[in-house]
């Protein structure tokens, strides 16, 4: 019975991978592009631009700080110049 289950699980995993594999890269790129815009909007203040929604977005910062690090690296800054933000 255990073998049957594992066979089914293996088939299911193989099947799901067939669904995901061809599109994984495209979908991740699309998601990353959307995230880039979101991070840029939420961290406008850190870039020296007044952000009208900054006050309301403050509580999102802890959740996004890791994304912010990856974001500024993608945007061409290896370390973020503003002290205390990240890095």
């Amino acid at each position, binding site marked *: 019975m255990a073998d049957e289950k594992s066979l089914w699980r293996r088939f299911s995993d193989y099947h799901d991978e*067939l669904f995901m594999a061809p599109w994984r890269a495209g979908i991740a790129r699309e998601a990353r592009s959307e995230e880039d815009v979101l991070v840029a909007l939420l961290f406008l203040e850190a870039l020296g631009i007044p952000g009208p929604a900054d006050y309301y977005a403050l509580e999102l910062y802890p959740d996004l700080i890791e994304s912010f690090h990856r974001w500024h690296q993608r945007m061409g800054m290896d370390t973020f110049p503003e002290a205390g933000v990240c890095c």
Partner: protein
Amino acid sequence: MPAFFLIVMALVAFYLGYRFYSRYLAEKVYALDPNFRTPAHEMRDGVDFVPTHKHVLLGHHFTSVAGAAPIVGPAIAVYWGWLPALTWVILGTIFAAGVHDLGSIVVSARNRGQNIGTLSGKVISARASTLFLLIIFFLLTLVNAVFGVVMAILFESNPGAVIPALIVIPIAVFIGQWAYRLGRSIIIPSIVGLLLLYIAIPIGQAYPIEVDGLASAIGLEVRTTWILLIFAYTWIASRLPVWILLQPRDYINGQQLIVALFVIFLGVLVGWDTVSAPAVNEVSADSPHWFPYLFITVACGAISGFHSLVASGTTSKQLDKEPEARFVGYGGALGEGALALAAILACTAGLGAAGEWNTAYADFGAASGGALGHFVTGTGHFLSNLGIPATLGATFAAVVVITFAGTTMDTGIRLQRYILAEISELAGFKALSGRVNLLTTLAVLIPLGLALVPGGDDAGGKGFAFGRLWTLFGTTNQLTAGLALSVIAVWVLARNRNPLAAIVPLVFLLFMTTWALLLNLVDFFQKGDWLLLAMDAAIFVLAAWLIVEAVTALNRQRGARDPAAADR
């Protein structure tokens, strides 16, 4: 002769091709190395570069490269008899497509997973990148035009297929939501979805949908109305995020492909049908001559340049071990050959007695305009051997081709949008920059215009130039393959290995393509098809350009052999 013998002949040849020729390619031409760190490991990022099990990789490579084209091409090409069509499918698959598909994966994997467009700029010349872009532009234009017509023909002649073809859309959307919103395994919903699709086939038959009323209300032909509706759909579909519709639709196609192949081969075996088509058909003098048109018409059924885009675009980035390229690349080419074989069987053994075949393939117009109908009828007959009513089987076949063509168009319009953006950027034309809706509209209007070109060479005098569009599509597709084979040949030569395995199919393809383009030029001029004449002339220029680039690059490489390069 029993049709089953055709299956045996082809499968034995494919087996021998895989067993011996692909081993020669893997060991002597591409020198696949189990110790080579593939880009999937070297550049692993969990997104583009992911080491993938070879069975999964073959599954997604095969379902990505297979579509409606390897069905349509051979279905037309049996006009010259089953023997020339089958011979070219077998030889083309073994000696051209296998070399091309396997080589595209290997060259890309050895170049950090770069795609064939970038590689052509790097391996051949900087100009070759522009050439690649232009060839792809024409290829996509013709793909979208041809498949728009394909779907319209099938909807018009099989109104029972409309409901099942439409039901695929909510099923696909549901599977996409299930996978991404709920993050669960899709095995159960996909089985349920497939069952729903097959339940929809008899429902569709009971409630056929025709657009005659709409067509007469707007004063257009029925097929024109379908073409307009299909292109309107592709505009919307190509603007949706891929996970909502395109990805699950593509996946449903994969399932359909496997089911279709299985039931066709099983139907032939159970029914023990005989081949009613002649081995070599005595065609009328005003028909296109089989030499060179057979090779252009079979197109993807033997070798397809589109495979190099998939092979170098995604497959090479997911290759776990380099020797597995043989299983995935060569295996994928054989899978496409099997699909072409299924189309040949349906159109030579599924149409009934010889008299019926002669009527169906009375002239080239009937062959090209009616090819899809012949495939649908033939598949319906094979399914009737399995106890499924032939009309239901025919609707099933129509749905398979429609879903393939629909997904290809969705992808094609997206790609055309990117290509248009890139071409306009290269040309310094800023008006299109970032204007996605406008780019999508252009990507739809260009092939739409071509799909509506009057021609009158179809069966039933519907007034569309499908047969001529198909030969143009075939030439462009072979040119894309020619470009990839040029890259492969130069790369192999640079490593001091024998490049003949790539050069022979390259020369053959370029010769056939340019010859067919020249014959088309004369034909279009005589018939006054100015739009098609302009298209043909442009593609001819690209072919000549490609020949110059390939010869120059091979000569340059021959004069600059580097003994130390053999191991790279």
